[in-house]
């Protein structure tokens, strides 16, 4: 897991990253939450290890934004509210290197997905432990995005919907080939040679070659097997290569 202490990270890249930031240089945090006692306690806890420096304790996102103009902020830890999506975009515009981590009550909300898509780097719920929070901030500072498994589930579903649409388009691309070309491609996938295809379809070998040539050109590939692979991947013809 992520080491919150000194620089003992095995990965050479993140190691270099940490070194360049300097071991002494702490991550600068702003905490925004309506509940003063909570944010004071949280700030005290996070400030303990010298890894984090709390440079602002404010009551909402608007005030957190004001802090951005005054000092360098690495991470904004902000309670999820109605305007969170706008806040994320505003932070992005004003201070692109600052990252927003949202803190919510539950993880059933659609707007969390919108915030993440808008560029928020993390979403945690108050059910999680402080250790979770600390390692989440650490991961976010290294460019990753942290969220709860339930949110991850919804994100997967969202990507799957988009993927289905892309897949659908790719499949309909069979329309760029003529029926004859598809038929020949299907025969190639059965390992038939040009001669055999010609005999099967009552065509001259020359005509078959022309069709194959045109197919390769249309698909932008340079071998008949690449063409078969292209077609199989898009679900145009069945995969007979392995059976």
């Amino acid at each position, binding site marked *: 897991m992520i080491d919150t202490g000194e620089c003992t990270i095995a990965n050479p890249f993140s190691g270099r990253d940490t070194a360049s930031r300097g071991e002494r240089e702490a991550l600068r945090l702003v905490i925004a939450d309506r509940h003063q006692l909570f944010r004071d306690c949280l700030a005290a806890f996070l400030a303990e290890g010298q890894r984090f420096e709390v440079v602002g304790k404010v009551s909402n996102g608007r005030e957190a934004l004001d802090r951005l103009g005054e000092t360098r902020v690495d991470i904004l830890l902000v309670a999820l509210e109605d305007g969170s999506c706008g806040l994320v975009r505003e932070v992005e515009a004003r201070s692109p290197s600052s990252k927003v981590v949202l803190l919510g009550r539950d993880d059933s909300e659609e707007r969390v997905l919108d915030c993440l898509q808008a560029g928020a780097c993390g979403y945690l719920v108050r059910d999680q432990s402080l250790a979770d929070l600390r390692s989440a901030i650490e991961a976010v500072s290294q460019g990753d995005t942290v*969220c709860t498994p*339930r949110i*991850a589930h919804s994100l997967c579903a969202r990507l799957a919907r*988009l*993927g289905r649409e892309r897949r659908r388009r790719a499949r*309909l691309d069979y329309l760029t080939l003529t029926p004859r070309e598809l038929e020949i491609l*299907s025969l190639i996938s059965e390992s038939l040679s040009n001669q055999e295809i010609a005999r099967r379809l009552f065509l001259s070998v020359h005509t078959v070659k022309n069709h194959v040539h045109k197919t390769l050109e249309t698909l932008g590939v340079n071998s008949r097997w690449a063409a078969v692979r292209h077609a199989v991947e898009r679900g145009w013809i*069945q995969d007979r290569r392995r059976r």
Partner: protein
Amino acid sequence: MQPSIRVAVVSEERMFREALAASLSGYEGLEVTALPGDGISVEGEEPSDIVLIDAASDFQVALLRTWEARERWPEAKLIALGLDREDDSVVDFIEAGAQGYVLKGASPDGLVEVIRSVHQGRTPCSPGVVASVLARIAALSGMRPDPPQRKVEPLTLREREVLALLAAGLGNKEVGRRLRITVQTVKNHVHRILEKLQVHRRREAVRIAYDLGLLAEPRETAVWERRAGGQGAAGPFDGGEKA
């Protein structure tokens, strides 16, 4: 007592399927319901809650199996098994419909844990994967123009039949033979279809027809094979006589 989670295992390798099934059936609350060896759908089989897809062998084949599985078990949640590392390949499987993944080094206990959480709508996901999923969502959202909402004059039954055969990749002559009408009549129908859909080429007509829902979507696997009909599947690709 809660009903068991019904698990299907999809793998090209029989020994892997059976070993996995044997191991999983030792856990309480899991029941292995299907062990299909290939992507060919079986009528009247039990529904599954979770489908495990062997992603350890050929990447493209596994991806194709994921697409097929999503069509075959639309209600089930898919999990990709045996990935090498948490890189873009994980995101490819999520785009194809996977709701979870398990790396190569995982233990049976670890797998069962993932099965249980995915079943409850939680996807255990590393911060790096979450970031990549978001990046992919952003990339795909950008390229998706909404399907055209154009108003078209309704097609006659005959025109729909002709269109379905065009979609299956048939030429005028073949369409005429199947519908027992002359080539000239087919041409007239095609002309009217293009006019009504406000396009110039039959290829565009087919695409628009899919977008507008005038034609049923081609099913996963092998657009081309359906042209021949005979499999008795629903959809536009056997809209004509039965061979």
